């Protein structure tokens, strides 16, 4: 079969690789009909996430048709159309029983690596380094889905791939980020980053009833897309983020702040950004936490910081005194996708939201390598790429 394979920093190739096979009785083999390039794939592309090996198949946002099921898999049958969450879950461990699916205790088959990197292992993830299991990803013609009797979400007839594909990652990620904010009708929610996850954060916060939602970025077409849903725009190239947020909140700051940027925050000319770049260049810091610092500083006392943006390692010069003294609450983590999928699927069916709004580029899988660059460099107004194997 054909797949997109990681060959090193900034090098992804379209390769012929062996077809996947059923390995465990709960497995399923999925023929991928649509897959997407996620912002967090760019952290792999740019070489910021450790644990990748040459030839690894990328992709953790995908859906398709069930081609084969293992002997103990009673949930799926051949021909079912499913979206596969990017977190692999067993459904039986202590964490899964609590709904903390992204920290499933059993699905990371490289548990020792996970324990070493994070203290305790997190769930296995598709196509996302050997620290999270080294599972082949979904930017391929076929995928082996482990524990396929609990994770995959069956899709009813009448919905297109484009409407439901993002149930596997970015839609529940944006939704969870907003849910973690415990939004009230008087809240101002500030969202840093108008990429795909930021776009879903904006719409989720609006659906949850926030008084005003503010989006912060410097890419005009992304700001325009967020404004289309009703967000107030701050272009950090033109305005001071702190001044504008204080203006919009009568000097009190937003109650809820969402970091939809993560470890590759682009320098804005501020001193801390230059500091991060310099430290990262000499490998004294792995992540660039400009957004975190800004959120901790501007957030209203007793507010909530929600962090769906991915961080990978060590950060520096965090104003923790401000966070402690203001009594801020931090909520973060990879998405517990299956917590939210039924509810979000219902909302799509009812027409409350159509996630296909975010797709700007659709192409065959063979064009994946070039579209990674297009997405990374935001060329051609690219916001979200969908690939068709």
């Amino acid at each position, binding site marked *: 079969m054909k797949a997109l394979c990681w060959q090193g920093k900034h090098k992804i190739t379209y390769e012929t690789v062996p077809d996947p096979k059923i390995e465990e009785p709960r497995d399923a083999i999925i023929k991928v009909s649509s897959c997407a390039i996620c912002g967090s794939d760019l952290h792999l592309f740019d070489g910021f996430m450790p644990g990748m090996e040459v030839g690894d198949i990328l992709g953790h946002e995908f859906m398709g048709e069930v081609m084969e099921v293992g002997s103990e898999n009673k949930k799926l049958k051949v021909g079912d159309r499913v979206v596969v969450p990017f977190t692999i879950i067993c459904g039986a461990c202590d964490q899964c029983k609590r709904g903390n699916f992204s920290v499933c205790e059993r699905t990371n088959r490289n548990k020792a690596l996970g324990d070493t990197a994070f203290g305790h292992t997190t769930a296995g993830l598709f196509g996302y380094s050997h620290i999270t299991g080294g599972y082949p990803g979904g930017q391929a013609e076929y995928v082996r889905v482990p524990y396929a009797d609990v994770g995959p979400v069956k899709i009813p007839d009448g919905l297109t791939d484009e409407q439901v594909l993002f149930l596997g990652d970015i839609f529940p990620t944006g939704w969870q980020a907003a849910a973690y904010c415990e*939004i009230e009708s008087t809240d101002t929610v500030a969202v840093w980053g108008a990429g795909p996850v930021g776009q879903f954060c904006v719409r989720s916060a609006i659906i949850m009833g926030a008084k005003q939602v503010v989006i912060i970025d410097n890419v*005009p077409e*992304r700001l325009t897309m967020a404004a289309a849903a009703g967000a107030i725009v701050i272009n950090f190239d033109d305005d001071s983020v702190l001044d504008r947020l204080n203006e919009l909140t009568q000097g009190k700051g937003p109650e809820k702040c969402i970091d939809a940027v993560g470890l590759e925050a682009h320098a804005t000319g501020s001193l801390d950004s230059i500091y991060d770049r310099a430290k990262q260049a000499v490998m004294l810091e792995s992540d660039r936490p400009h957004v975190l610092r800004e959120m901790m500083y501007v957030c209203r006392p007793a507010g909530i910081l929600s962090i769906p943006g991915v961080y990978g390692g060590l950060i520096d010069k965090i104003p923790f005194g401000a966070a402690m003294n203001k009594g801020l609450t931090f909520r973060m983590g990879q998405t517990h996708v299956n917590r939210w999928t039924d509810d979000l699927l219902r909302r799509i069916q009812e027409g409350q939201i159509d996630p296909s709004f975010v797709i700007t580029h659709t192409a065959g899988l063979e064009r994946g390598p070039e579209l990674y660059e297009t997405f990374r460099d935001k060329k051609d107004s690219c916001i979200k790429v969908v690939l068709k194997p």
Partner: protein
Amino acid sequence: MQNTLTYKVARGLGWFSVALGTVEVIAPGAINRLVGAREGHAFIRAFGFREIAAGGGILALSNPTPWLWARVAGDAIDLAALVLAWDSRNPRRGNTTAAIFAVAGVTALDFLCARALGAQVEERQRPRRDYSDRAGLAGTAETMRASAASGFKTVSQGTNVRNKNVAKITR
């Protein structure tokens, strides 16, 4: 932008700036001797710190254009200093002449790079596609908020959804 030749040239200029600045700070006397000047170690050191700052700025920022223009301004100061040193009493006038040509060449490169990179940034910041019709929601923000206010979604409902899903999924 980060894969363009212009950006790579800019980073090269950044490293060059840091290297030259470091030499100027550590060994201002050697620079002076090279161009035949007898005094002004403090000036050379100051130039060195300026070079390091510009180089650091270029390497640190995703859009290094302002620091490239800072280099162009710095080049002009360097050229003025070299012209002042290019007098008949200078025993190494030939070296000074060569330095003037070298700095002029680097100035041209800095200028062209800053201009090209500025144009690329401007192009990137210009919206090329109009996404103003991509709300993705069933109604306006106001109507969606009104739906929320009427109880179609509250935080506690979200929690219930979670619990229901957990019960269904776990084995």
